[in-house]
C-alpha cells in the first residue's frame, strides 16, 4: 500500500507535508528524534453462551501518538481527534521534554520496502457478520456433541483490522494493514453431582476468514476444549516439590516467554534490573537449547511487517546452544546501548509509548523422539497445556500454570492431575533441559502478553522438552 492510497491520506486528508510539519513541531524545542504513530482500528466480537448468541459488538477507534526523544528522556502525547489543530497540540505537548533550539526542520520521508507477511485480501473484519456468527454456533454445537457430560459451553470470536502509519524524523514512512482474528472455546464438564472441570482452546492469527472454514474449523477448537474438560474429571491431587517435568509441544512454550523472553527485553537490561543483565556470551541454558524470537513468520499472531516504530521485524536469536546471544531492542534502548533495533518496538495503541516486546518466541527442534523422552522418566510430571505465566524480571523467578497435566510413572503417562503452578528461575531453569524433541510446534494463536499495562498479541512454540528439575506447586 502506498501512503497516497491509505485511509489516512484518503479519509483524513493527511499529506506528507502535514507529517513533516507535525514532526517539525515535535522537535521545535530540540530533541534527537520524533515519531508519529497514526492508528485506525476496527474491531468486532461475538459471544455465545448457553447456545444463545448473547453479545455482538462492533467498534471503531482512532488516534495519533507523538513521541519526542531527547537523550534518555521521552515526551509523549496523543489525540483521538485527527484534526490538524489537535495533532499540532499533541506535538507541542510532547516537545516540552526537550529544551534547546530546534535542530531539524526538514525530513525526507520515504516509503521503504517492507515484508508482506499477511497478504490478506479481505480481512475477517470486512466479511459478512452472518458468516462470522456461524463460527461460535458451530463451536457450541461441537463441544456439546463431544460428550454428554459437557454441560456449559462459551465461545467467543473476535477480530480486528488495524491501519497503522508511522513517520519518523529519520525519514521513515511506513504503512501497515494488520488483520487479526481468534476463536476461543471454554467448556465445562461434570460427572453426576461432582465438581465441574473446565477446558479451554482457541486459535487464529493474521489470517482470512477461510482459516476457520478450512484449516482450523470451530469444531477443532471445540473438541479440544471439551476433551480437556473431560480428561480433567479424573484428576488427582497434583504433586508438590522438585521433580522431572516434561513439557508437551506448542503452547507450553510459555516457559520460554517467561523464563527468558521478558528478561531479555533491552529496556530492563539497559537499566541493569534484569537477572540477565550483563550476561551476553554466558551460558544460561543447556547446549540443547536455541531460543528464537521471530516476527516474520507468515500469518502468525505475533508477526508484524513492521514494528510499531516503523522498523521491519526480523528473526532474532536469543539463546544459541545455551549461550545468551542478544536482547530484544527498540529505538530508545538500542540508541542508548549503541546497537541496532531488532524490530521489537511495540505498543498497545496510539495512547502508549513503545517498548521492547516479544513477537513469536520458540525453541528450535532437537533430535529426540518425543515418546523416547517420556519413556526416559521413571517418575515425573507431563504438562500438555498451560494457562498464563508471570515473571519477576529482577530475581528471575517465573511461574506458569498447568491446565492439563499427567503423572509420568515408569516411563508412561498415567493419571491426570489438578491445575498446578510451576516455578523456576530464568537464568537457571533451562540448564536442566536434558532432552529436546524433534517435534517443534507453534501454538494455535491466542496469546496475549502484558507488560507495564500494555497488552500485545504474541506467539509461542516449543518441542517436547525434558527438564530434570523444576518445582511443581501441587498439594500431594
Amino acid at each position, binding site marked *: 500500500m502506498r501512503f497516497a492510497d491509505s485511509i489516512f491520506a484518503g479519509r483524513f486528508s493527511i499529506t506528507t507535508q502535514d507529517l513533516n510539519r507535525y514532526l517539525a513541531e515535535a522537535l521545535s524545542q530540540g530533541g534527537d528524534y520524533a515519531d508519529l504513530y497514526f492508528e485506525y482500528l476496527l474491531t468486532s466480537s461475538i459471544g455465545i453462551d448457553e447456545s444463545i448468541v448473547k*453479545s455482538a*459488538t462492533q467498534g471503531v477507534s482512532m488516534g495519533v501518538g507523538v513521541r519526542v526523544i531527547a537523550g534518555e528522556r521521552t515526551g509523549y502525547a496523543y489525540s483521538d481527534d485527527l484534526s490538524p489543530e489537535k495533532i499540532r497540540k499533541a506535538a507541542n505537548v510532547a516537545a516540552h521534554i526537550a529544551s534547546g533550539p530546534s535542530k531539524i526542520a526538514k525530513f525526507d520521508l520515504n516509503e521503504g520496502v517492507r515484508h508482506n507477511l499477511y497478504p490478506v485480501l479481505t480481512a475477517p473484519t470486512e466479511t459478512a457478520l452472518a458468516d462470522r456468527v456461524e463460527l461460535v454456533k458451530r463451536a457450541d454445537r461441537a463441544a456439546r456433541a463431544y460428550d454428554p457430560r459437557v454441560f456449559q459451553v462459551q465461545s467467543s470470536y473476535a477480530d480486528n483490522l488495524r491501519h497503522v502509519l508511522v513517520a519518523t524524523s529519520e525519514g521513515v514512512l511506513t504503512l501497515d494493514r494488520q488483520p487479526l482474528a481468534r476463536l476461543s472455546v471454554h467448556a465445562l464438564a461434570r460427572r453426576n453431582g461432582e465438581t465441574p472441570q473446565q477446558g479451554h482452546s482457541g486459535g487464529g492469527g493474521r489470517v482470512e476468514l477461510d482459516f476457520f472454514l478450512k484449516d482450523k474449523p470451530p469444531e477443532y477448537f471445540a473438541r479440544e476444549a471439551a476433551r480437556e474438560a473431560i480428561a480433567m474429571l479424573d484428576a488427582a491431587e497434583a504433586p508438590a516439590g522438585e521433580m522431572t517435568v516434561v513439557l508437551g509441544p506448542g503452547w507450553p512454550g510459555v516457559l520460554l516467554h517467561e523464563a527468558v523472553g521478558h528478561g531479555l527485553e533491552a529496556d530492563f537490561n539497559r537499566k541493569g534490573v534484569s537477572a540477565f543483565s550483563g550476561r551476553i556470551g554466558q551460558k544460561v541454558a543447556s547446549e540443547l537449547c536455541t531460543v528464537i524470537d521471530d516476527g516474520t513468520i507468515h500469518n502468525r499472531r505475533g508477526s508484524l511487517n513492521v514494528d510499531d516504530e516503523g522498523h521491519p521485524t526480523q528473526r532474532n536469536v536469543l539463546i544459541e546452544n545455551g549461550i545468551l546471544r542478544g536482547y530484544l531492542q527498540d529505538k530508545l534502548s538500542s540508541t542508548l546501548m549503541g546497537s541496532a533495533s531488532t524490530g521489537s518496538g511495540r505498543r498497545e495503541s496510539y495512547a502508549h509509548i513503545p517498548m521492547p516486546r516479544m513477537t513469536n518466541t520458540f525453541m528450535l527442534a532437537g533430535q529426540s523422539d518425543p515418546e523416547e523422552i517420556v519413556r526416559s522418566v521413571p517418575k515425573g510430571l507431563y504438562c500438555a497445556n498451560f494457562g498464563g505465566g508471570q515473571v*519477576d524480571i529482577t530475581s528471575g523467578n517465573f511461574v506458569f500454570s498447568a491446565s492439563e497435566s499427567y503423572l509420568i510413572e515408569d516411563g508412561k503417562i498415567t493419571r491426570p492431575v489438578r491445575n498446578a503452578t510451576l516455578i523456576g528461575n530464568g537464568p537457571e531453569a533451562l540448564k536442566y533441559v536434558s532432552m529436546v524433541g524433534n517435534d517443534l510446534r507453534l501454538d494455535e494463536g491466542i496469546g496475549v502478553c502484558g507488560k507495564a499495562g500494555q497488552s500485545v498479541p504474541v506467539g509461542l512454540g516449543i518441542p517436547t522438552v525434558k527438564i530434570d528439575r523444576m518445582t*511443581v*506447586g501441587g498439594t500431594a
Partner: protein
Amino acid sequence: MTENHLLEMANDAVRMAIARGATDAECTIGEGDEFSAEVRMREVESLKEAGSRGMGLRILVGKRTGSSYTSDLSPEGVDRMVRSAVEIADITSEDPHAGLPDADELGAIGGDLKLYSKAIENLDPARNIERAKRAEAAAFAVDPRISNSDGASFDSGTSRHVFANSRGFSGEYRTSSCSLSVSPVARDGDSMERDYWFTLARDPEGLQTAEEVGRTAAQRALRRLHPVKVETRKAPVVFESRIARSLLDSIFDAVHGMSVYRHESFLAGKLGEKVAAEEVTVIDDATIPGLFGTSPFDDEGVPSRRTPVIERGVLKSYLLNTYAARKLGMKTTGNASRGLGGNAGIGHGNFFLAAGVQPPGRIVAGISDGFFVTSLMGFGVNIVTGDYSRGATGMWIRNGELAFAVSEVTIAGNLRDMLLNIEAVGSDLEFSGSLAAPTLKIGEMTVGGK
C-alpha cells in the same frame, strides 16, 4: 466540553437508536485526561499527557442485543455507531433474559461522594516530577544496598462517566485520582531483588508522603535479599494485608453472578451455607465517600449500595447485574460494570474483608513455624474447582519472628478449605484501591519448594 453537552449527546444517541428500530437502548460516554511523569536514577525518564473520549451504545431489538462503540464523537461518527449497533443486533439470538433494568430499579444515591477533587486540576507538572524524584531519593537513602532503581512515577487523571437509557435514566459523575509509586532494586553480592510501594488517592492531600513511599519500597526490597528455597512441607500461611487482597479478588470471582448461573464457581448454590470461618465477614459497599470503589450508580443506572456477601462465615449474597439476577430469579445488587462495548458485566464496589481484632504482629508471634507471604505470582486460581496454586515470596516465620527471606516456592490448597481455615483476621484493614483485606492467617497450606 460542558457536562450538559455530553449528557445531551448520550440522550440523543439513545433517541437515534430508537428511531432506527431499537426497542430499548443505553449509551455510555467516557472522557478522561491523564498525566504521567516517570523518573529514574534522579532524572526525568518520560512525561506523558493526553485526553481521550469514547462512546458506547447497547441496544435491544425485542430480545436481541447489539452493541457498538466509537472514539469519533462527530455527528457522522455517532450516526455510524448507531447504525452499526442496529446492524449487528441482527445476528444475535433471542434471549428471554436480556433487557434493561425495570424503571423502578433505576436511580442514583445522593450526597457528596467525594469522588472528585478540584486540586487535581491545579497540580503543577514540575512539582509532580519533584515528588517522584523525592520518593526515589528516599529509597536510595535507606541503605547503600539500594543501588539501582526501576524508576518512580507520579500519575494523575480525571474522568467523566455519562450514562443514559431509554427507560428515563440519565446521570453523570466525575472522578479524580493520583498516585505515586517507586520500584527500587536492592543488591548484595549475587543477590538482586526488586520490590515496590505505591500510594493512591482521589486528592493529592490523601497521598502518603514521597519519603514514606520511598522508605517502605526500599525496606520491602531489602528484606527480599538472599532468599532461601525451603523444603516442600505443610505449614500455616500468613498473607500480609496488601497480598490478602488477592484472596478478595478470588472471592469476588466466586460470587460473580455470571459465574454462579453458569455453575463455574465453587460457591455456586451455596447461599445460606457456611463457606468461611466464623471470623470472616465480606462486604461490598459502593457508597463509602472518597474510596475507589464508590459511585452514585452502577453501569446500568441502578443506585449503588452496600451488600453483605459473607457474614460471620455464612454466604449471604452474590454480586449481580440485571442479567445475572434474572437468570437466578433474584434482584440486581447494583454491580453492573461495563466498558464501552458489549453487554454489562459485573464489578465490585469497595469489596473488603472486615477487620478483626488481632494486630498483625501478634498473629505472626503466635506461629512457631510458618510462611509470611509478601508477594504472589501467576494465575493459578481455578474458580470452578477452587484449586489454588501460586508462586510466592515472603519471609519464613520461626518461633514467632520473621526469620529469613523465602522465594521460588509455591503455595497450594483449595479455596474452599482455605476460607474455612482462616484462623486469624488482623486489625489492619486499609483501603488503597477498591479491594481491601487485613492480614490473614490460613491454618495450613502446602508450600512447594525443594
